[in-house]
Each structure stands twice: as structure tokens, then as C-alpha cells.
């Protein structure tokens, strides 16, 4: 959007400097004005929308800084006069958020790495290897996308409990190490690689592993990056499964911990808000670092059609 508007802008001003005909000049100025109004309108709209989206976040920050008794007062405070930053420290230590965050980060890291690794391998097999029933197996993979996690949650719980994995990192992470979605996403990306690349590598003595590592993965970085971000978001925001698997403090994830924090007592209301912000920080950082990758992953299909 902005690229073509600026191109238009400069094109319009180029023309303006060249002509001296008053009629035409007026017309050009009118075009430019109309154009500028369009830009102003667009940015106003975007600002309003951003405000609507960001307002609850802002209020969370405000509420996290207010004393407990002010928070329920009417009308609500929009700007905290006294800022109680110690709520964050309280949430971190007394609310055990530090501990929960640690668990969340460990589990999320395992799931993300696991999903990316298994998806790369599965997608490679579905793209470059010839084996019996390849199509059928792939369709079965795809079919798992249609099954919501809630359907399998009971059996999964039983399995994990039989394995004695309740209250453990593996219990939290193992059921999510493979994903049909990831295999599908990466296969689509691998399929766009010219077949001749694989054949050239084969002639040059590159086996599957080396071809995967040296050619396929580097060339599919955008898709792999997008998958990593999606996996991370999914793993980070899990609630039901960690709630079932971990009742031990030690293995409680931050989402579950927050919920319990909010249920404890009213005096800790602002502390809950502070906890919420703390829990969202890793995501925020991730988004800032990988926003380009995420957008590219989301639009990849759209551009290629």
C-alpha cells in the first residue's frame, strides 16, 4: 500500500514541476489533495482500530499499578497517580510467576523444537521419498487436522498417567511433539523447490540428510520460521492440558498459574494484572523479533496463489 502511494506521490510531483499550464496545474493539485485526504483518512482509521485493540492492554497495565482498593472504584482510573511497581515483584515471587514462567518456557521450547523437527522430517518424506501408500498416509496426516484436541484429551491423559508422566515436563510436552499441520505447511513449501535441485545433489553424492540440511532447510526458512512461531504461540497459550497434567507447583505453566492467582483473593487483583503482563512479555518479545517472519508466513500462500 504505502509503497505505491509514495510512488504515485513522486510521480504526481514530477509532473507538477514540468507543466506550467494553469488548468493542468490546478487539476494536478486537486489530485494531490484528494490523494492526501485518502492517506489521512486511512491512517485515522488505523489509529482508531489500534486504539480499540490496545485499550484493554493499556488498562491491564494501569490496573496492575493501582492500589487494590482503587481498582474497584467508579469511575475507573485511566491514569494511575501512584504507581505501585512492587506488584510486579509480588507477582514474580509470592505469586510464583517466576517459577511458572520457567516451566512454560521449558515446555514451550520443547514443543516448538519438537514440532519443527518432526514436521521437517515428515514433510521431507512426503515430498522427496518414494514409499508405498505415500498419498494415503499423507491424507491420514491431514485428517488429524480435523480432530480437535479435546476429542483425544481423555485417552491422552490416560496414556500419560499410565506412563507415570503426570507432573513432568515430558507429560506436558510429548503429546504435542508432532503436528499434521506442520507437516502439511512445510510440504507445501518443499514442493515449490525444483526437483532438479534434489537430482543435482544426488548426482553430487549428497544423501538425504545432507541434502535436507544444506539445501531444503535453508531454502525453506520462511515457512519453517512461521511454523516455529505458530507452534510457540500454540504451546504458550495452552491451558486445559497443563491444568490436567500438573497439579504440582513445580510443573505449573504460567497460564494455569495466572488463573489460580486470580482466584485467590481480591486484594491480589492488581497482582493478577501484573502477572498477566509478565506472562505476555515473552510473547511480545517473540512477536517483535519475528514479526517479519510471521507476516511472511501468513502471506506466503496468498502471494504464491
Amino acid at each position, binding site marked *: 500500500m504505502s509503497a505505491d502511494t509514495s510512488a504515485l506521490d513522486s510521480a504526481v510531483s514530477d509532473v507538477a514541476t514540468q507543466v506550467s499550464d494553469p488548468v493542468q496545474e490546478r487539476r494536478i493539485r486537486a489530485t494531490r489533495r484528494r490523494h492526501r485526504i485518502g492517506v489521512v483518512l486511512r491512517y485515522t482509521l488505523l489509529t482508531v482500530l489500534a486504539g480499540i485493540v490496545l485499550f484493554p492492554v493499556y488498562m491491564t497495565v494501569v490496573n496492575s499499578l493501582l492500589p487494590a482498593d482503587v481498582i474497584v472504584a467508579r469511575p475507573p482510573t485511566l491514569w494511575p497517580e501512584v504507581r505501585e511497581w512492587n506488584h510486579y515483584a509480588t507477582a514474580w515471587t509470592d505469586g510464583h510467576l517466576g517459577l511458572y514462567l520457567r516451566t512454560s518456557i521449558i515446555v514451550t521450547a520443547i514443543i516448538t523444537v519438537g514440532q519443527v523437527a518432526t514436521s521437517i522430517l515428515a514433510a521431507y518424506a512426503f515430498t522427496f521419498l518414494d514409499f508405498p501408500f505415500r498419498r494415503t498416509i499423507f491424507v491420514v496426516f491431514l485428517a488429524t487436522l480435523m480432530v480437535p484436541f479435546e476429542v483425544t484429551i481423555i485417552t491422552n491423559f490416560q496414556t500419560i498417567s499410565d506412563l507415570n508422566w503426570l507432573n513432568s515436563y515430558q507429560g506436558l510436552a510429548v503429546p504435542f511433539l508432532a503436528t499434521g499441520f506442520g507437516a502439511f505447511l512445510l510440504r507445501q513449501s518443499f514442493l515449490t523447490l525444483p526437483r*532438479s535441485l534434489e*537430482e*543435482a545433489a*544426488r*548426482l*553430487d553424492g*549428497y544423501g538425504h540428510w*545432507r541434502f535436507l540440511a544444506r539445501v531444503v532447510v*535453508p*531454502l525453506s526458512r520462511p515457512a519453517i520460521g512461521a511454523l516455529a512461531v505458530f507452534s510457540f504461540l500454540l504451546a504458550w497459550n495452552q491451558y486445559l492440558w497443563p491444568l490436567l497434567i500438573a497439579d504440582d507447583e513445580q510443573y505449573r505453566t504460567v497460564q494455569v498459574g495466572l488463573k489460580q492467582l486470580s482466584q485467590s483473593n481480591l486484594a491480589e487483583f492488581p497482582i493478577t494484572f501484573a502477572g498477566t503482563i509478565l506472562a505476555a512479555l515473552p510473547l511480545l518479545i517473540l512477536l517483535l523479533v519475528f514479526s517479519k517472519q510471521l507476516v511472511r508466513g501468513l502471506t506466503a500462500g496468498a502471494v504464491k496463489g
Partner: protein
Amino acid sequence: MGSVVLEEVTKRFGDTVAVDDLSLEVRDEEFLVLVGPSGCGKSTALRMIAGLDDPTDGVVRIDGRIVNHVEPKDRDVAMVFQDYALYPHMTVRRNVEFPLRTRSMDRDERQRVVTEAAETLGLGEFLDRKPAQLSGGQRQRVALARAIVRRPEAFLMDEPLSNLDAKLRVATRTELVELQRRLGTTVVYVTHDQVEAMTMGSRIAILNEGALEQIGPPPEIYRRPASVFVARFIGSPPMNTAAGPVRGEPGALRVVLPGGEIALTPHDSRTVAGSGCSEIVVGIRPEHVTVNDAKDGATADGAAGDASGIPASVLSVEALGYERHVICRLDDGTTMIARISTDGPEPPAHSAVRLGFDTARLHFFDPATTRRIDG
């Protein structure tokens, strides 16, 4: 050293026969061109030599050794792909040294080989660029450089010039042949372009629907095409062919064509009589056809001709600057093309003319088998 032999090789994809009972020998240090129309199985044949496809039947030998069950990497052949198959994320240097990284070769040696290959192909200044920052011709050189660093027994090239513009293609043609001479390796070169085949090959193998039509040095293929297919495939414009019954005495035969007859030379008469065909396909190259005025028999480019030719009407004239192609139609609709000099007036379209044939330059084919009839 680097000979490549196919013995009765067949390749089927389901019901499609891509390569049909193909026997072929590529001699050591030879530049053999595999040529044929699209879909005739050239790429498949090449891929079977490389080991990328397995033959359904038959034997592939490289350097005397049967390689049917040898991995591609152990066949000691390098392939240049039509799309070059360069790795987009690697610099030119990385691309060129890619085949060397699987071998135990120390870094200095590798650098030396890469630099040498880059120099051979004039890529020195591009070594640190990515393929996307190169022109088509430069990419093609990178693909070649990557092939030569391996010092293979044989190069396999699948239409490596087809992505280049016409001018660059002509220049690269010469360079490729020159490179092959210098390296002294065997090359199997696939193309659908008969000009490329004629100018580059020390021998040409012509494929049609998966089967070998003819193999030989370019002049021989041009002078003595082994079948109607070869006759019409090699040469531009293609050889004129027309079928007609044979008449007359064994020593003085005539072929009856729509609107007239051609009297055969005594030698040709004996050849045709020997074949026992009562009907025959006559072929004549466009340069051996003259276009004569329908009434006085003067040729289109001014020389005195004969009035005895076959009547035809002019469809159109293609003036190429250095020569002209007169496209004519016989009474029964058969198209005949004459290649004439640019001297003299142009025969107007739709005018009636007489086509004269240089009867010493006729080719004969058996209409049943479409194979050449030879004395």
C-alpha cells in the same frame, strides 16, 4: 575411458513408452547430440545414463562397466540441467564447490579447483554473488563450472542453452564445443534444436517416439537421411516429400506426382527398381528446387530454366535477406518449399509456377516402412 553405451534400453512410465529399445554407443571424448521433437524421450534417455531413472529393460554401460544398479553419484557423470539447478541460497563459489564438499579434498585444493573452473568459464568476478544476481548466460556458466570441477567421465547436458536468447545461444554453442575439446571429455548433449545438433555434434542421434531413427556425423545425416522422419526433421526449411507411383522401364523410371512426372537418373532408376516398391516417397531439399515461370520456364532468380517442371501455385514468399523461401502447393495440396537466392523478382503470391527438381539430388523412401531406399 568415458564411453557410454545403451543396449536395448526401454523405459516405460505406466503405459507410456518413453524410450523404446534404444541401442546407442557414445564413444570416448565424443560430443554426441541426442535430438528429437518434444516428448521423444531424450531427457529420459539422459536420465537413465545419469541414474536418475532406472531402465525398465536393457543395460547401461559407462566406461565398459554395467551401471544399472550403480548409484548416480558413483557413475562419475556430471549433469547440466535445463534450469541449471543452482542453489539459490549459495554464492557462486559455494555452488561450484558443492560437488567437491562430499569428497575428501582439503580446502586449499578445493579453492584451487574452483578458481580454475571459474577462470575457464570467465566467472572470476562473480564468485561472491548469488545466482539471482546473475544473467541467464552467467548462470549457465555456473552450472557448467559446477559440472567441470568434478572432472567426470562424461557430461550429460539437457538443453542447457534453451533459456538463453538467440544471440547468446550461438556464442555459447561454440564455447561449449571448444570447452569439450579442451577438457577432452565425453559429452551427451540433449536438444530439440536441429541447428544446435548440426553445429555442435561430432555425431547426432535422432530419436522419434523413444526409438533411434539414425545416428551419424551431421553431414552424413544431412546427405543421406535414413528415414522420412530424419529427412524432414533435419534441415530448415525441411525436405520436401511427396508420394507417387513408379512408372516406366527398369532403366528409366519415372515417379508420377500430382500434375506431372519426375524422370529418374539411370542410377536412381536401378536403386528404386531394386527396392521393388511400386509406389515411392520422393524427397528433395528446398535448395534443389527451382521456381520457374509457368510459361517461359525462366527461374525466379533470372536464370533460364526448363518448362517441364511440376505445376504449382505460390502460397507465400519468406524473404530472409540472404535467401528466400518460396512456399508452393501442388495440385493435390502437397506443400513444397523452394530455397532461392535473393536475385531477381519475387514470384507473386497465388501465381502459377513450375517447380524444377535437381534430379541428381533426389532421396527415396519406402512408403510402407518410411526407411531410405539405397542402392
